[in-house]
C-alpha cells in the first residue's frame, strides 16, 4: 500500500473523539467528507496580472495539513522584486481600466465571483479544512457561505457609492496592500477584496504562510470570472513579503488583520507616508453572564465563543465573567458540555474542535496554559483521545483566575477559557473594560435595560447580546484601543477604501 494511502486510512480510523463518546454505545461512526473533490497542485506560483507566474526570488515553501503534518503543496515565496511587480501591475490596472469602470461593471465581476464561490463551496470548504485544520462543519457552514455573502453584499454597493455618503463624493484611493491571517483564510480574503473592488481600487493580497491554498483557489475563480488582469494580485510568503507589500511606495492603502505586535510594526512603518491604514488586531473579549440569563443558551454561547475554530478567533470570548450567584450551575453545565465536544479529524462532519493551525501556535498555547497553572489557576480539560499525529489541544478552561494572571490579559488564540466572577454590573463592566484590547464583548441577561446599560459602556467594537460570534456582511466589525481601528463590513467598511471630494450638489 502506498504510504499516502496508508496514512489516509490511519487518519480515518482516528475518528473524532470526545469524553462522551468514550462512555456510550452511541459513539457516532466517523463521517468524513471526501477530499477527492479538491485537486491540489504540486506547486503554486504567484498570481500577478491574471496569471500564475514563477517567483523571481526562486524560492518556494511548503504548506501542510496541520491535522496530519503532511505537506500538501509548494507555494512561491514572493521576494521584493515579485512584490514590486505585483504592485506595479495593480497600479497599471487601476489607472488603465478599473478606476474608471462604471460601478455596475465592477459589480458584474463581483457577482460572478460570489456565484462561483457558492457553486464550488464544497471544494472551498474541504480545501480550507485541509490547509488550516478547522472542522469541515465550520468551513462548510460559516467560512464559505459568509465569504460569498461578502462579495454579494459589496457588489450591491458598487453602483450606489455616490449615494452612500450624502454631501461627499467618493473616489477610489488606488492600490490596496492587504495582509490577512490564517484563522479564516478565505473569509478574510473576501472581507478585504470585496470592499476594495466595489470602491474601484486594485489589490495586492498577501495570505498567511500557513494557509495560502484557498486564496490561490480564489485566484482561479477570479480568472474564470474574467476580472481584468492585474485588478487582484496574490503574493504568497511570510512576514517579510507582507512587510514589502505594506511599505511599497506605490501602495496607497494598507489593510491588515493579524496580531497586535505586527500591527504596531506596520503602523510605525507607514507613519508619515500618507498611506491610508486600517488595522484589525487582537482581542481578549469579555463574555458576561448575569444571574438572570438563560443559562443553557449562555453555556452554548460561551462554548461557541471560545471553542469555535479552536479559539483561533480575534473576537473570541476568552474571558468569561460569571455572576457569583450562578457560578456553580454555570460551571457545572460548562464542564458537562465540554465533555460532549468532539475533537479530532477536521474532515469528519461530526468534529466540533479541529487541529491547531501550526506547531508554532500550539507552542504558544502550551506556553500560556503552563503559565496559568504556574500562576495558580485551576485547569480543567475533558478526557478525550487526541490523534497521534498533527497539532492538537484539548478544550481547556481555567477557574480561580485573577485579572493579574497572564491568561486573563494576553491573547492566547487557542481553545482556552479563563473564568472569573463578579458581584455587580459595575464590577463586571470595570473588569471587562480593564484590558488593552477592545474588539468584542458578550452580555447575557434577560433584562433588556441591563443590556442597554452594559453595551453603551463596554469599550468594544462589537457587542453581542444573548448570542456570540455572529457575523453578517452588513454589520461593521472592528476594534477599540490595541484591537485596532477602522471598520470592515457594512457601509462603514466602504469608507477606508475611499477618498472624498466636496460635493457641489450638496445643499
Amino acid at each position, binding site marked *: 500500500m502506498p504510504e499516502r494511502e496508508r496514512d489516509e486510512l490511519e487518519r480515518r480510523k482516528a475518528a473524532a473523539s470526545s469524553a462522551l463518546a468514550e462512555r456510550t454505545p*452511541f459513539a457516532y461512526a466517523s463521517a468524513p467528507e471526501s477530499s477527492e473533490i479538491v485537486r491540489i497542485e504540486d506547486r503554486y506560483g504567484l498570481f500577478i496580472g491574471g496569471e500564475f507566474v514563477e517567483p523571481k526570488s526562486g524560492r518556494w515553501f511548503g504548506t501542510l495539513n496541520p491535522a496530519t503534518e503532511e505537506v500538501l503543496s509548494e507555494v512561491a515565496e514572493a521576494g521584493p522584486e515579485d512584490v514590486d511587480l505585483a504592485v506595479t501591475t495593480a497600479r497599471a490596472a487601476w489607472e488603465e481600466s478599473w478606476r474608471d469602470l462604471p460601478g455596475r461593471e465592477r459589480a458584474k465581476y463581483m457577482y460572478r465571483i460570489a456565484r462561483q464561490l457558492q457553486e464550488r463551496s464544497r471544494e472551498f470548504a474541504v480545501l480550507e479544512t485541509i490547509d488550516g485544520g478547522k472542522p469541515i462543519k465550520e468551513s462548510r457552514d460559516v467560512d464559505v457561505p459568509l465569504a460569498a455573502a461578502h462579495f454579494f453584499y459589496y457588489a450591491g454597493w458598487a453602483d450606489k457609492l455616490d449615494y452612500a455618503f450624502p454631501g461627499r463624493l467618493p473616489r477610489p484611493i488606488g492600490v490596496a496592500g492587504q495582509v490577512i491571517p490564517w484563522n479564516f483564510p478565505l473569509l478574510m480574503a473576501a472581507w478585504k477584496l470585496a470592499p476594495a473592488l466595489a470602491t474601484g481600487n486594485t489589490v495586492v493580497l498577501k495570505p498567511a504562510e500557513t494557509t495560502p491554498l484557498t486564496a490561490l483557489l480564489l485566484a482561479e475563480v477570479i480568472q474564470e470570472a474574467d476580472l481584468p488582469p492585474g485588478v487582484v494580485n496574490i503574493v504568497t510568503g511570510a512576514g517579510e513579503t507582507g512587510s514589502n507589500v505594506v511599505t511599497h511606495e506605490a501602495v496607497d492603502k494598507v489593510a491588515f488583520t493579524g496580531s497586535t505586535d505586527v500591527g504596531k510594526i506596520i503602523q510605525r512603518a507607514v507613519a508619515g507616508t500618507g498611506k491610508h491604514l486600517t488595522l484589525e488586531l487582537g482581542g481578549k473579549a469579555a463574555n458576561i453572564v448575569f444571574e438572570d440569563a438563560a443559562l443553557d443558551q*449562555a453555556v452554548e454561547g460561551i462554548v461557541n465563543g471560545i471553542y469555535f475554530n479552536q479559539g483561533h478567533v480575534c473576537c473570541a470570548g476568552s474571558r468569561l465573567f460569571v455572576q457569583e450567584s450562578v457560578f456553580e450551575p454555570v460551571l457545572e453545565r460548562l464542564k458537562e458540555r465540554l465533555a460532549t465536544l468532539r475533537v479530532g479529524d477536521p474532515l469528519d462532519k461530526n468534529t466540533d474542535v479541529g487541529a491547531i493551525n501550526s506547531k508554532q501556535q500550539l507552542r504558544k498555547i502550551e506556553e500560556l496554559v503552563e503559565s496559568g497553572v504556574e500562576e495558580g489557576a485551576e485547569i480543567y480539560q475533558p478526557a478525550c483521545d487526541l490523534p497521534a499525529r498533527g497539532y492538537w489541544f484539548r478544550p481547556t478552561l481555567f477557574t480561580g483566575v485573577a485579572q493579574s494572571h497572564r491568561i486573563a490579559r494576553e491573547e492566547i488564540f487557542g481553545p482556552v477559557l479563563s473564568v472569573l466572577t463578579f458581584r455587580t454590573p459595575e464590577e463586571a463592566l470595570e473588569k471587562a473594560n480593564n484590558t488593552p484590547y477592545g474588539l468584542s464583548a458578550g452580555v447575557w441577561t434577560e433584562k433588556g435595560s441591563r443590556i442597554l446599560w452594559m453595551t453603551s459602556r463596554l469599550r468594544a467594537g462589537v457587542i453581542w447580546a444573548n448570542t456570540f460570534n455572529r457575523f453578517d456582511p452588513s454589520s461593521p466589525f472592528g476594534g477599540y484601543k490595541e484591537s485596532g481601528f477602522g471598520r470592515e463590513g457594512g457601509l462603514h467598511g466602504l469608507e477606508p477604501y475611499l477618498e472624498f471630494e466636496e460635493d457641489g450638489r450638496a445643499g
Partner: protein
Amino acid sequence: MAKVPAETHTKVPESPWSPQAAEAAMVRVTPVDAVGLEERAASLGTRSIKRESKLFALDLAVRCADLTTLEGADTPGKVTAVCSKAVRPDPTDSTIPSVAAVCVYPALVPVAAERLRGTGVKVASVAGGFPSGLAPLDERLDEIRQAVRWGADEIDIVLNRSAFLSGRYHQAFEEITRSKEACGTAHLKVILEIGELGSYDQVRKASMLAMAAGADFIKTSTGKIASSATHAGALCMMEAARDFHRQTGRAVGVKVAGGIRKAKEAWIYLVILHETLGPDWLTPDRFRFGASTLLNDLLMQIRKEREGRYQGPDYFTVD
C-alpha cells in the same frame, strides 16, 4: 464565611413565610432563550449518523416506540392488530426487537392487556380526560384507576393547561400528584402539550412543575393539535429533566410524540437526548417515541442499512 452569632436578647418577629417558602420566592425557573435553543437543536440536527451508529439508533428507536392508536374508531380488531405489530414489528425478521408499549384509550386496555400478556410489551393508556384534561377531577382520577385495574402499566395524562396558563400552578401541581396516587404502581407520563404553552419559558416551567409533582415521564404532545413535538421543544424539556436530576437525584423520562414520521427525525431526537441527558437515558425506561407511521420507516431504514438498498412499502405490514 464567618458564622453570625444568633440573637439572644431581642425577640425576632415571626416571618409569615417558612424558610422554604422564602427560598422558593427567591428562586425562579431558569429562563430559556428561544433563538439560542433553536440554534442548538438545529446544530445537533446536522450530526452525521452513519453505519453502526445509525443501526444502533434505529434499533433503539424501535425499542423506545409507544405504538399508538387513539382514534374514536378504534375497535378490538384494530387494537389486536396493533398489538401483533408491536410484538413482532417485522414478521420476516426476528432480530427486530419488540416496541416498548402499545398506547390506547382506556376502553381498549382490556383487549391490549390480553393480547400483550407475557410478551414484555407494556400496555399504556391515555386517561384523565385526554386530550383536554378538563373533565371533573374525580372523573379523571376514576378513569385512571379503571385503566390500571384493566391492566394498564403506564398512564398518559395531560397537564391541566387551563390551570397552568391562568397561573393556578398549585392546582395543576396537585392534580398531577393525585393522578400519581391514582396510578398506584403504574408509571405516570404527563403530557405538557407544548404547542399550547406559547413559549419555551413556559415549557421549561411546565416540565419542572410536572416532574416535581411526581411524573415518571414528561411528554411533549397529545398528537391531537396541529403543533406537536419539535426538536427545540424536546431539547428544552430534556434540559429541564437534566437539571431536575442534578438537583434531586431523581431520573425522569422524556417522551416525544406527535408528527414524527421519518426515521431521520427520530435519530435527531436521539442525538439531542444523547448530548443533553447522556447515555443513561438511551433506554426505553427513560425515553419513548409516540409512534404510528414512524415504525415502518424505521423498519425500512434498518433493512436498507443491512442490505444496502430500499425495499418498497408493501413489504412492511400496515396494521
